[in-house]
């Protein structure tokens, strides 16, 4: 029974990583850039939802909508101002810019909301589903997060494979130049990618803070890094991979804490990552692409 309850804790933590990783992998898969500011967009989303419920007295649903709208606009704005001018620049320049954006967002949040941590009120409601005479409890937040994860994963997969815009995205991802020659508007496609990625970030932020209710300007950075790890673990660029990687990372983290040592859990998680990448350099579900010379 303890095994099961640790498994549930692991899935609960992992689903939060997974939902963040979906946004990461989406942007990487299409735009071929690591958006290190993703974790901070998550933080902004959580603050927006917090402001909606705590300061304006809105219903949780309204505040989530607010968070999604603000983050989507923010994501597109960031892309336009910070990344678009660097479309032709080496990827290192874009990476450094992304880190710069991340610091900008953190410090802007510091100015606006100050550094005092805030305790986030869960948008899901605090209850839990009890199984086996209450020996096992699964919180509603976990259920909603896992559900949201699956829905988003399926929706994203369908979107990228079935719709016109999705096809355009895959084309841009394969070869920007060729896509443009085929009449695809590369800039619009990348903007839409960022809009979707950032909207997902808002949902991830709200769910992250509902599960672990503490909110401060650095809230997004550590889960962001873990989620990035999860995305790489599952195969960056692969949508089901992000979900699988996230859940596995959470479960491994909790199990190594529970059965090996709380002191070594981080070391074990990252050792696993190294082993996976040594055996399968593209991650668990990553597609291997031969680089053309």
């Amino acid at each position, binding site marked *: 029974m303890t095994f099961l309850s640790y498994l549930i*804790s692991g899935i609960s933590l992992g689903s939060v990583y997974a939902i963040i990783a979906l946004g990461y992998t989406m942007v990487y898969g299409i735009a071929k850039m690591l958006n290190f500011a993703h974790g901070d967009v998550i933080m902004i989303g959580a603050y927006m939802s917090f402001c909606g419920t705590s300061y304006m007295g809105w219903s949780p649903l309204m505040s989530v909508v607010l968070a999604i709208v603000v983050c989507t606009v923010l994501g597109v704005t960031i892309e336009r*101002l910070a990344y678009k001018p660097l479309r032709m620049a080496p990827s290192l320049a874009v990476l450094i810019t992304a880190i710069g954006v991340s610091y900008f967002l953190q410090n802007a949040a510091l100015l*606006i909301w*100050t*550094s005092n941590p805030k305790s*986030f009120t869960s948008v899901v409601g605090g209850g839990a589903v009890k199984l086996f005479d209450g020996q096992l409890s699964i919180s509603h937040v976990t259920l909603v997060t896992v559900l949201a994860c699956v829905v988003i994963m399926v929706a994203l997969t369908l979107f990228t494979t079935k719709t016109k815009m999705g096809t355009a995205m895959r084309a841009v991802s394969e070869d920007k130049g060729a896509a443009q020659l085929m009449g695809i508007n590369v800039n619009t496609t990348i903007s839409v990618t960022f809009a979707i990625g950032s909207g997902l970030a808002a949902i991830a932020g709200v769910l992250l803070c509902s599960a672990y209710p503490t909110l401060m300007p650095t809230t997004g950075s550590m889960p962001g890094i873990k989620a990035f790890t999860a995305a790489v673990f599952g195969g960056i660029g692969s949508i089901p991979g992000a979900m699988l990687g996230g859940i596995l990372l959470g479960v491994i983290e909790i199990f190594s804490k529970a059965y090996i040592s709380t002191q070594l859990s981080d070391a074990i998680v990252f050792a696993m990552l190294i082993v996976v990448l040594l055996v399968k350099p593209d991650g668990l579900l990553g597609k291997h692409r031969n680089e053309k010379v």
Partner: protein
Amino acid sequence: MKKILSMLLAGTMLATALTGCGAGGNSQDAGTNADSAEGDASASAAVFKLGGTGPLTGGAAIYGNAAKNGAQIAVDEINAAGGAVQFELKYEDDEHDAEKAVNAYNALLDWGMQISLGSVTSKPCEATAAETYSDRIFALTPSASSVAVIDGKDNMYQMCFADPNQGTASAQYIFDQKLGTKVAVIYKNDDVYSSGIYDTFKAKAAELGLEIVSTTTFTDASANDFTVQLGEAQKAGADLLFLPMYYQPASLILTQAKSMGYAPKIFGVDGMDGILTLEGFDTTLAEGVMLLTPFNADATDDKTANFVKTYKEKFGETPNQFAADAYDCVYAYVAAIEAAGCTADMSAQDICEKLVEAFPTISFDGLTGEGMTWDATGAVSKSPKGMIINNGAYVGM
């Protein structure tokens, strides 16, 4: 069209940034007002320039601001009373970061700091203590409690207990008051404050025969999920949970323990102070949490009552231990400066040598203890008070 759009967006971003500055500006205005008040005082008598660094922004800001406010009240009182010793106070932000603390310290040196209040939190204070030691500036930290802060430095003193004392005192207190028989500890093993307290707690518990049934850790990278740590404690049958950490992870532990239906007694240390003012936190979760702190805002003696009243009037909240420690620091300086016979026109180095001689000789009554004394290592000797959170307020046990 795109140019216009990007200009517009840039404008919006700039506006947001400026709004932020506007909000931040208030605190700066307050600082300027205080400065000008002190400026008037300096016209009549020479003043000692007293400087300190602390996290005025960042995750630990609640401590830095409390210390700054507490010290400010003491300085205002002393200057208003118009004695021979007058102060000018300046606090610089270190964001609880050692590197930034050294920069902040250098800014204070440029300003002409003569005596230092060190840094508010441990890691930054270890960095600034090395600087004050090599620059020969006397420092008395209100609240940086790690041993490394004062270790091997003759001119660095502490107003709070050192971490080992907190661990030892907590174990002693739990044992004496028979608060629990099976103790579980969760500590943060990448933080010198938390692990320092744990080490001495463990040693003292072993000596007293207090049984520690579960010890688990977390780090910055894994400070979200505590279900495993709590599960271990519950499985081991712990009836008391000792949490030597700051209040932010503690708030998550309390929330998760409740959702697990696990309700041990919770015992914290001074870092737990602040949990009640965490915005949006359900304070009923902290009901019955015990902590060891030298300061009790509910105490009825005149000194404490006046301090609490002034603090509430000026800053709109109940002062915590950090504010009281900083307040005491300033008054302890007055006592030491008078004992040493320093004057404000002396150089920082001369003041330092005199204070190093004078500090171990004084006995000081403050908000955080009666008859406090210091030994030559810089460690304070005072007795802690046990507190319990009852109906959302601290009550002495």
